[in-house]
């Protein structure tokens, strides 16, 4: 795709981007979708016990995370962040290794359920299951950045249901008091498993809650990748200018059941599910890029083939990787002695923990 690098369509120009950037974003949305679909195939084939999906959320994640700077900023994801972590540097192999719970899975070495991504290499914080806890970690990362005078922003994603947890309130409040460089992204897909928004929140737009903490809240259509891009870029620039946090609420759709353990037809009508399909960011983005002359049929086919190859490669490779060795299951409860320092390290005296971002 080298030749694309010099093309700047009107659509790209309007966003201060080159066509190649738009195509990269399109490829990421398509890639995340393809990986996701593969996971369900594996699930039905009995090869993946559990799947939790990002289908419908990819546009928001790719759009927003695209402005996060790899190797500098931090991404604090949640279980639907497949597209987000791909955008920020993880690979299809990384995702599939988590899905197959392989020893070399960078997220957890097969210790966590699929969907709990993390990569020390890429400043992607390890994910846990209790929802909304990560929001405070993002706030802490931003606090450290500010205290240490580092030019870093932390961006965290969570579901709208999770934003009702107390940690949300405590985190936004502290970030607001100290105007920390942190961006909160609520991906509102209308449901917390089966519980609809009407039972989760008395107000329709959770972005309005930002006013309670003295910083802007923005509602963005999560099926519009470039609207998300603009919202993300603006929020990140605000943070970098030292103006503090932003709350972005991306209205997205959950195209799958909550997870492979869920049957959403029990609580969502066929009509509703059909209507939601209209909000799929992938075809919409494809149409938009076609209309703008950024994407043509050959290029689309090329990307599709490329994505398929990447997913096939990741699947085959991950499946062929060894399982974790039970002999390692006792490891990493605590830091292990650094051979360079000697065994006292474990005792704690005189040791400084190496943190992933120490070089920044």
């Amino acid at each position, binding site marked *: 795709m080298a030749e694309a690098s010099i093309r700047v369509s009107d659509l790209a120009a309007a966003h201060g981007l080159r066509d190649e950037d738009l195509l990269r974003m399109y490829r990421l949305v398509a890639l995340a979708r393809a990986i996701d679909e593969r996971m369900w195939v594996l699930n039905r084939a009995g090869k993946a016990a559990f799947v939790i999906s990002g289908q419908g959320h990819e546009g928001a994640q790719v759009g927003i995370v695209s402005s996060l700077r790899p190797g500098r900023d*931090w991404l*604090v994801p949640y279980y639907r962040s497949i597209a987000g972590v791909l955008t920020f540097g993880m690979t299809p192999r990384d995702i599939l290794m988590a899905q197959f719970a392989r020893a070399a*899975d*960078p*997220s*957890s*070495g097969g*210790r*966590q359920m699929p969907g*709990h991504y*993390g*990569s*020390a290499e890429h400043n992607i*914080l*390890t994910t*846990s*299951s*209790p929802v909304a*806890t990560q*929001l*405070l*970690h*993002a*706030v*802490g*990362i*931003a*606090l*450290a*950045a500010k*205290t*240490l005078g*580092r030019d*870093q922003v*932390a961006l965290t994603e969570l579901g709208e249901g999770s934003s009702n947890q*107390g*940690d949300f309130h*405590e*985190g936004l*409040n*502290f970030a607001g*008091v100290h105007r920390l460089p942190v961006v909160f992204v609520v991906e509102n897909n209308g449901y917390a498993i089966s519980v609809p928004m009407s039972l989760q929140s008395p107000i329709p737009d959770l972005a309005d809650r930002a006013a309670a903490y003295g910083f802007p809240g923005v509602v963005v259509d999560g099926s519009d990748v470039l609207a998300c891009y603009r919202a993300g870029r603006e929020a990140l620039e605000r943070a970098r200018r030292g103006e503090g946090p932003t709350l972005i609420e991306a209205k997205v759709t959950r195209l799958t059941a909550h997870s492979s353990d869920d049957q959403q037809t029990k609580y969502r009508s066929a009509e509703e599910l059909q209507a939601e399909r209209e909000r799929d960011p992938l075809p919409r983005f494809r149409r938009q890029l076609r209309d703008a002359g950024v994407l043509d049929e050959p290029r689309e086919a090329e990307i599709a083939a490329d994505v398929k190859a990447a997913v096939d490669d990741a699947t085959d490779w991950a499946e062929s990787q060894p399982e974790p060795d039970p002999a390692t299951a006792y*490891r*990493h*409860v*605590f*830091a*292990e002695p650094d051979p360079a320092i000697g065994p006292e390290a474990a*005792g*704690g*005296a*005189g*040791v*400084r*923990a*190496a*943190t*992933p*971002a*120490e070089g920044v």
Partner: protein
Amino acid sequence: MAVRTFLEAIRGALASEMRLDQCMVVLGEDVGVKGGVFLVTDGLFAEFGPERVIDTPLTESMIVGASIGAAVNGLHPVPEIQFADFIMPAFNQIVSEAARIRYRSNGTFGCQITIRAPYGGGVHGALYHSQSIEAFFTHVPGLKVVVPSTPYDAAGLLRSAIRDPDPVLFLEHKKLYRSVRGEVPAGDYTVPLGQAQVTRSGTQITVIAYGLMAHHALEAAEAVAADGISVEVIDLRTLRPLDLDTVLSSVRRTGKCVVVYEDNKFGGYGAELSASISEQAFDFLDGPILRVAGPDVPAVPYAHVLEDWFMVDPGAIAAAIRRLAAY
């Protein structure tokens, strides 16, 4: 060596560590201008300023959760929970997050934080300002739990805790703050985590304790010495990792053991001690492992007479020692 109170020793170690380690920050409710409700952090704000000594909103989950994130990004946070009783809102962040970040990431992330919390009764603090909370946290793999009893240990262990790459819960008995004094070297010494100390040698009965109870145990040992009972006292200092070697080697010699803790008896930390000892030193035991612990009611009541009723005192320990000696 200067003589310092328990509180001064902790304050001194915090200050000296902040001077050494530019990444260390202290945060919590009232830790700044006021210097903490017990004045443990008094003076730090004046010396290190509001960026490194942070008066936070009244939100314990945030205090710990933000500390975790800050640690991941290079700070060495030392959050204070104003009273150990108020650590409960942060339970999820401590147990589900801090304690597991390393394990769940297969060792690729760590969390270097030391959570300080004043605990314990006998200070007229009633149900919610008197609790012992160690049993909740010593059960959690991935956490270290430290409970010093002397000024020397407090400063030395606190330095080790702050430098430890993993999360440490550092419990300070409120009653010791001003009532206990001891020599504290000026230099940058440490006391390693995970090592118990034999604070009194004896041959007939081992008494194991920590925190305020480590002092009561010594007092009780003195009291029964008059009756010719020779008691060895172990101050655990670190509850997790537990220095079981020191415990077992003593109990294997004495053959009898009293475990003392201030917390409610049922399911308290001493239960684990007792279970471990009976598992690994059964053949050496000449009598049951007795526990002297708080009654099983929800924490310490306020009225003086009720508080006295609740608290384990040297007399109760001495009585158990005598009972066991006669066994």
